[in-house]
């Protein structure tokens, strides 16, 4: 199962620049192709495509969303157990783990280390076992 690019593609290359798995190939101004074996189904190509040329694995066309309106992870420190699963799940490695303790809390906690890199895939939310992460548009 993978995302697919339709012939509506205008070859702008926005998707291939963003794809964290290097799964999209194609020349400038030519139809781009998603290599199914490499696609991790993060959906970033669909959100960035200005021509609505990307279909999800069910054939539904993805709508472009302005990047500043992409939802990004928000952490609930009280629920978080510092297990690092979210950091590992992130395909663009935009999350970090604090390496110093705070008064009353000896554990390092995850935080958004590179918001510009975040593609809003929600993998961190999907994999967090204790629902300590929610997705929301950053204020």
């Amino acid at each position, binding site marked *: *199962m993978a995302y697919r690019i339709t012939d509506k593609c205008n070859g702008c290359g926005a998707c291939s620049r963003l794809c964290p798995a290097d799964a999209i190939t194609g020349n400038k101004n030519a139809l781009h192709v998603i290599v199914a074996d*490499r696609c991790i189904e993060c959906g970033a190509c669909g959100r960035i495509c200005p021509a609505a040329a990307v279909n999800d694995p069910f054939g539904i066309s993805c709508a472009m969303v302005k990047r500043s309106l992409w939802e990004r992870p928000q952490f609930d420190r009280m629920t978080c*157990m*510092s297990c690092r699963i979210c950091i590992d799940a992130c395909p663009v490695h935009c999350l970090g783990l604090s*390496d110093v303790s705070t008064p009353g809390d*000896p*554990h390092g906690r995850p935080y958004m280390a590179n918001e510009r890199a975040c593609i809003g895939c929600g993998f961190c939310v999907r994999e967090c*076992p204790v629902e300590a992460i929610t997705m929301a548009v950053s204020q």
Partner: protein
Amino acid sequence: MNEISSKVEETRMNFGYMGKILIADLSAREIREETIPDHVYEQYLSGMGLAACILYDRIPAGADPLGPENIIGFVSGLLTGTGSLFAGRWMVVGKSPLTGGWGEANCGGSFSPAIKRCGYDGIFFTGISEKPAYLYVNNGVAELRDASHLWGRDAVESEAMLIAETSANSRIAVIGPAGERLSLISGICNDRGRMAARSGLGAVMGAKRLKAVVLDGKKRIDVHNRAEIKRLSQICNRWVQFQPPIFAGPVTAYVGALMRILPVQMAMDGMVYKMLLKKWGTGAMNQMSVEMGDAPVRNWQGSNVDWGIKKSLSVNPDAIRRYEKVKYHCYACPLGCGGICVTKGKYGETHKPEYETVLSLGGLCMNADIDSIFHLNETLNRAGMDTISAGSTVAFAIECYEAGVLTKKDTDGLELTWGNSEAIVALIEKMIRREGIGDILADGSKVAARKIGKKAEASAMHAGGQELPMHDGRNDPGYNVHYSVEAAPGRHTVGAQMYYEMFQLWKVAKGLPRVKPLYFKGRKYVANEEKAVTAALCSKFMNIVNCAGLCLFGVFLGAKRTPTFSWLNAATGWSKTPEEYLDIGARIQTLKQAFNIKHGIDPRSFRPGDRVTGKPAQTEGANRGRSADMGKLITDYYRQFGWDPETGRPTEESIDRLRL
């Protein structure tokens, strides 16, 4: 996005495992993928079971552990990356140069999910590279790269250099100078000094001139029922996070003393152990174990009488915790027993020394200098040398020196007396550099004893060549059973009577022996059949745990609180019963035993020396007068698997029954 992902997962076939392995032939510089049939996972799960299957088939009988025919494998667990807690362990497997048989080492950190994110359940290496090399897997592309510039550098330094030249997100398993110099007690590091230390597998990497395995993958790990896994994980996490305030560190010693004095013992509940781990890490037991008789002292000759509360005060849990700047969690761990510590000296920072490290470099050598222990912890981690084996070998050397078997001339002028921390530090640095006496000791106490000759062999405390961990089988004879019967001998992470109490397997599987909540200590030393039954159950269960990639401390919580079998079913979509999983554990145990038989190992040769088994029994201290009939315990254990009770060889019948 989450709903879409769930629907996609429902249409997939392989859940939990990736269905592929990567094999690199270092001699031919060829790398290939291999698809593993589903039935192999059904019969052997993943992780260690998959590795046993591959190594048994592919390493020819009599292969030199340091030769091209040996295979070294890095395997992840079936539950790694599925959302199951405690599932961050990776394992290194191969033919051990230390024991000559099955070799395995287990480690936490962040390397386990990286194997699966690259799309594999395991990565295996055969052959020998002409020049130092490392494997780099990035986004589905695997290549062997030159590592000449890293050869000779320590593990932490090499990791930093590899991150700089590959990717900031690379996860790295790397050897240090000890592995490069083929020290038989060397291991493999990840995450700045966490070690897969046992079985001497660092030397196998060194012999293959394989400096590191560098992984940067992004594959998704699909599971059958993520919602169920999360539900189970949340229940488990509630147990983990329950943490009432507990006493101060130095009080642990008095708790241990009380446990020593009382004629009765309470069955251990893993929740108690968990609370200690969560507060202090494994160092919680530093003093308590000595007082209750669990920790060997003065190369297994001493006791709490020699290493009393005052002497061991410097390594009490609070003393260690004072150095901690932040807790360290392995991947998927809600507990966080590790820590990053700020230290004096040239390194500045180190992983918190584990109980095994503190006791092997401390009480076993009568060394109370905490700064030297912190320094050696980091020195050994960077060198990639096993702290258990290194400490035990130093204790062996000190005993030889004190008995006149080694002289000052032999030790290059070092005054190797009990507790001489400066000499201990100097000796270990010599071992890492293989310099003078250090060259003799760098391969562990068994090899050193053979080289030294005279009466040295009586001072070498090992099982089948592997130095013994810091758990005294005279206190819990279950340890001695597992030191003797496991395919990788001399390891404390498989079973003991206390482990069976904590696993609480009878709560989820039918017909298993229950543990009395309170019993007289003398019962521990009665060599009845129930001891063999529970020991065999520990072996079977820990095989499942190592196939799943779970942490021992997680499963200590009890089979209901840490739902191993339910997680496995939810991840894979299987509907196996706990009894069926335990049968898989038995199959893997028999396969590992068959591996040793294939390679000419006599299982009876793994039995540790008489001193360790209490023959004669100690005359003072916590284990005064304690010993058990090891012969009976071992033959009864072999019977549990249908092996020949006298030789330990799997019989035709047992092989047929397990469909091997």
